[in-house]
């Protein structure tokens, strides 16, 4: 028994229903291409949620390329490192602690034209008796620990800061990372431990 509704109406188009209800394959391909393009664009321009990357910079690497505005100032870098690390023993004013931690203010070893001794002390530390500065004995009850984990740049910066700091009454020339690296390589194998004051005294500062 046929219902009259199933009968095609005369004059109406026959194919009003979709033959194939699935999404055409070309549309899927186009959508995937768009998605891929979006991902590539995001990768190129998004900065990957790095908090310091803002337009017009697109990545942390590119931002690094633009760090040329006069460059970092080693003296000021050194001030920051000193105020985080060295001041705990040597004091914010560089005066140290009497009988315990030698002062950096006006010290002979600090103010030498060649920084060989100071670089060695910072790299490997200083420990032992027999240290006399400004006529005051220092038994270094608190040994100076080695700071060789710091980079050449950081050590050069902090030594530059201490040596050139007018507040410390020091006026010695700055130190380059290359000088630090040269001494670091030299003492790497030959003298791995802390220096004693006598050993530092025996060092040729230019070497």
């Amino acid at each position, binding site marked *: 028994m046929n219902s009259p509704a199933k009968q095609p109406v005369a004059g109406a188009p026959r194919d009003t229903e979709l033959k194939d209800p699935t999404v055409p394959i070309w549309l899927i391909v186009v959508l995937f291409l768009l998605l891929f393009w979006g991902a590539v664009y995001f990768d190129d321009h998004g900065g990957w*949620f790095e*908090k*310091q*990357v*803002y*337009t*017009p*910079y697109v990545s942390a690497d*590119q*931002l690094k*390329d*633009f*760090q*040329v*505005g*006069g460059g*970092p*100032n080693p003296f*000021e870098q050194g*001030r*920051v490192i000193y105020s985080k690390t060295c001041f705990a023993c040597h004091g914010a004013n560089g005066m140290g602690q009497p009988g315990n931690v030698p002062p950096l203010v006006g010290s002979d070893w600090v103010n030498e034209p060649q920084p060989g001794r100071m670089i060695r002390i910072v790299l490997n530390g200083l420990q032992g008796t027999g240290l006399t500065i400004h006529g005051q004995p220092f038994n270094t009850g608190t040994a100076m620990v080695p700071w060789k984990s710091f980079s050449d740049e950081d050590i050069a910066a902090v030594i530059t800061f201490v040596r050139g700091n007018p507040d410390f009454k020091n006026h010695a020339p700055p130190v380059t990372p290359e000088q630090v690296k040269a001494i670091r390589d030299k003492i790497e194998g030959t003298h791995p431990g802390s220096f004693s004051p006598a050993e530092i005294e025996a060092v040729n500062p230019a070497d």
Partner: protein
Amino acid sequence: MRYGPLVFLAAFFALAVSWFGMVYTPQIQLGGAVQETNSVISSDLYPSERPGLARQGLEVYRENGCFYCHSQQVSQKGTLVDLFLTDAGKTNMAVANALNEEHVGTGTFSGPGIAAGLPKAIARNLSMERAQSLAAILKNNGAKSEMHLVPIGADIERGWGVRRTVAEDFIADATVMPGSQRVGPDLANIGARSPDLNWQLVHLYNPKLVTADSPMPPYPFLFEEKKIGSHPSPDALRPVGKFAPRAGYEIVPKPEARALANYLVSLRADTPLYEAPLTPPPPPKAATNAPAATNAPAAK
């Protein structure tokens, strides 16, 4: 309510996602920002805390809805590089030839001429890649160069700032006022543009005293019209013409007006930062841009 749990879950999910995206993630990303991380040039912390009066001024700024018409964010389209020659090395001829081969600048360089008047700009508005390759060429020829970064963009051309504004600029403020509309000019650097407190006060009392066709509404309620006592107040404004007070009266800023002016003067975001590098312009040689000595607006 057949779909009650489903509706609840959907709403919860939608709110949770937006909370993650708009509150939690930015907090992870920027919440740890501290002042000291970012000083490239000097050891001074940036941004410094605003002085007390300026902090109160922030509240006045908020109360009066200044943020409806003023933004505090400078945009930046790009960063170009000016290449400065600082040392021509020993073989000037080689340096000049290398630069001529690269077609740098408009003219040609001559061996003896290149070492004159250093440091000098040999090329401006370069892309970073081009500047780096030129710097490498100069280095190979024994010369030294320096790159000067020049941020560009519409806001910077208008004089609204020297670099883009970044999150770091706002971390000293408890309520940040980045604004969203620009009926008036951007105020991110108003303290650098108009550092004169009296100018700010006069402008707040009636902007038309400063700019005849300013669309900014006047804020006379931040000021008091006082009868002049035995001595005129030292900080009274002296508006002229139709803005002048009645005879025997003077216009004295209320504490709110003073706070707001101090806040505006404290607004400046022109320190070079790691995330917004720029080469600051050289300090002015002579004090030619001293603020006006009088607190009266210029007669028109």
